[in-house]
């Protein structure tokens, strides 16, 4: 087994190599891939941000929320409405969406976070179910355009970034969505990292581990929970804005605006590794990859797949995706990040300094 001292030359070399590899990968995708692949990465970035936001509440603070699809929707609709009706420049809609979602998040959290466990799950589930209904409500049609949603949200007023070149047509939109998604992802990651590594982060984990003990340490449990729920809601809204800007469409049936969205965010977080900073990133990439790979498998499949799934009249994609996720959870109950840590510990250990 290899041993590396923390802060030694080798340790730094490994770190630099990792960062370089990621950087090359990030630049390679939008410059050398086909449009569809670039779009997949852009949507992965969006999902990762949503899963990161859920991770703050569920992974670190231990408060389950199945209502995050509503915050995603709030972000998406805020952007669409402000751009369509009020002629806002898309960039500013991020701020507006974050503020609105923060306020709504805190308002929901205040009464809701006093309850726990399965009850909290049920109430947030109700929020997720209620939200699309609210969007279709006749009396709100002037704002939300009802069931048909808001489409062709323009993106042509975007600031021109010279290093990206002319962003035109379908390709341009995909490349733009990729870079914008990446930018917001990096910002969201830095926000989460800053929170977790600070005094606030310790108090979140303390609340998750033992709420009473956290309270006798002087942590204001209710206030902390409400605030982190608000922050989480506004991060999730950023993902919603991204989705609207990159697709140009937002409807009440949109995958991530409905209950299904909440479940997908939850899945990504758990598959990647709840309560870890990199978990949602790994989870999001794996999920989008699996989702797109399994989608290609139709009912006309031959061979093993056709033999196993021949009895279904529909595409077995969702079924295979589900099975794949179950297999991952069996082998990596603490998420892929947990599995990676366990395996890498067998090959190499980083020794802390001063021991």
């Amino acid at each position, binding site marked *: 087994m290899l041993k590396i001292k923390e802060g030694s030359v080798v340790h730094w070399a490994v770190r630099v190599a990792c960062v370089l590899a990621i950087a090359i990968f990030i630049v390679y995708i939008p410059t050398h891939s086909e449009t569809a692949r670039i779009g997949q990465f852009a949507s992965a970035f969006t999902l990762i941000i949503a899963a990161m936001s859920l991770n703050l509440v569920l992974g670190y603070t231990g408060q389950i929320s199945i209502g995050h699809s509503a915050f995603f929707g709030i972000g998406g609709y805020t952007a669409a409405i402000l751009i369509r009706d009020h002629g806002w420049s898309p960039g500013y809609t991020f701020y507006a969406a974050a503020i609105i979602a923060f306020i709504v998040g805190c308002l929901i959290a205040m009464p809701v976070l006093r309850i726990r466990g399965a009850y909290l799950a049920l109430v947030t589930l109700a929020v997720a179910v209620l939200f699309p209904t609210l969007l279709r409500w006749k009396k709100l049609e002037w704002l939300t355009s009802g069931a048909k949603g808001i489409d062709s949200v323009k993106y042509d007023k975007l600031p021109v970034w010279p290093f990206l070149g002319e962003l035109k047509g379908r390709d341009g939109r995909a490349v733009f969505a990729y870079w914008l998604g990446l930018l917001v992802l990096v910002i969201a990651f830095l926000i989460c990292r800053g929170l977790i590594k600070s*005094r606030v982060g*310790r*108090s979140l*984990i*303390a609340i*998750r*581990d*033992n709420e*009473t*003990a*956290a*309270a*006798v*340490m*002087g*942590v*204001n449990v209710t206030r902390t929970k409400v605030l982190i729920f608000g922050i989480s809601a506004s991060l999730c809204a950023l993902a919603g804005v991204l989705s609207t800007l990159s697709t140009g469409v937002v409807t009440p049936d949109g995958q991530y605006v409905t209950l299904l969205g909440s479940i997908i965010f939850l899945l990504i977080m758990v598959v990647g590794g709840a*309560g870890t900073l990199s978990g949602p990133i790994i989870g999001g990439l794996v999920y989008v990859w699996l989702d797109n790979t399994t989608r290609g498998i139709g009912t006309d499949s031959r061979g093993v797949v056709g033999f196993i799934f021949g009895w279904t009249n529909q595409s077995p994609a969702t079924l295979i995706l589900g099975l794949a996720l179950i297999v991952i959870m069996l082998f990596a109950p603490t998420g892929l990040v947990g599995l990676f840590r366990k395996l890498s510990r067998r090959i190499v250990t980083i020794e*802390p300094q001063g021991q």
Partner: protein
Amino acid sequence: MSLLQTTGLRASYGQVDVLLGIDIEVNQGEMVVILGANGAGKTTTMRAVSGTIPRSGSIVFDGHEIVTQNAESIVRLGIAHVPQGRGTFSDLTVEENLRIGAYIRKDSVESDIERWFETFPRLGERKSQKAGSLSGGEQQMLAIARALMSRPRLLLCDEPSLGLAPLVTQELFGVLKSLNQQEGLSVLLVEQNANLALKIANKVYLLETGQVVASGDAESIAGDERIRRAYLGG
């Protein structure tokens, strides 16, 4: 001087009344022990003082009425609670546990951390380990050190000996005793192990079904034949 004074302290869990009016006094620099059988209300008394359960009556700490205050404000006034079953944060490292113990402080805590690592060398050796990986005794030491990080004037210690080997318990009581006698830290201790507790206590309260049935200095309680037979197994 009276540091903590409860008068007619009552508390209940739902319909069940657990404390039926408790009067307890802890003076500055004293080590006070609450004895009693299971279900007498010892832990509930501690929780009532630290503000983690609803309660009524009067609790005066250092001139402040704290019966209406929440747990967070009570820590700020200078009461630290080592909960029963330790309540260490298993997913945080030993050092992070200590840091969160100083959550209410705005000044530098490095010297305090160093200090408790000197008092409890085994914690120092394991400072970057997750608290969940420590032994029971180490976790109890961590829970006490963590509580002391807030620099309290009163330490509430709820059954620190629970589930610990006799030798570890003795070591722990040694630390509590020296904190009390050398640093003048006031301690309110709940303990099942009466023989051990009486050795280090100044004053004793005996609880039975939510009421104080006897109190006095440690020697007189230890010498009382009736109490000896009922609680000390001798």
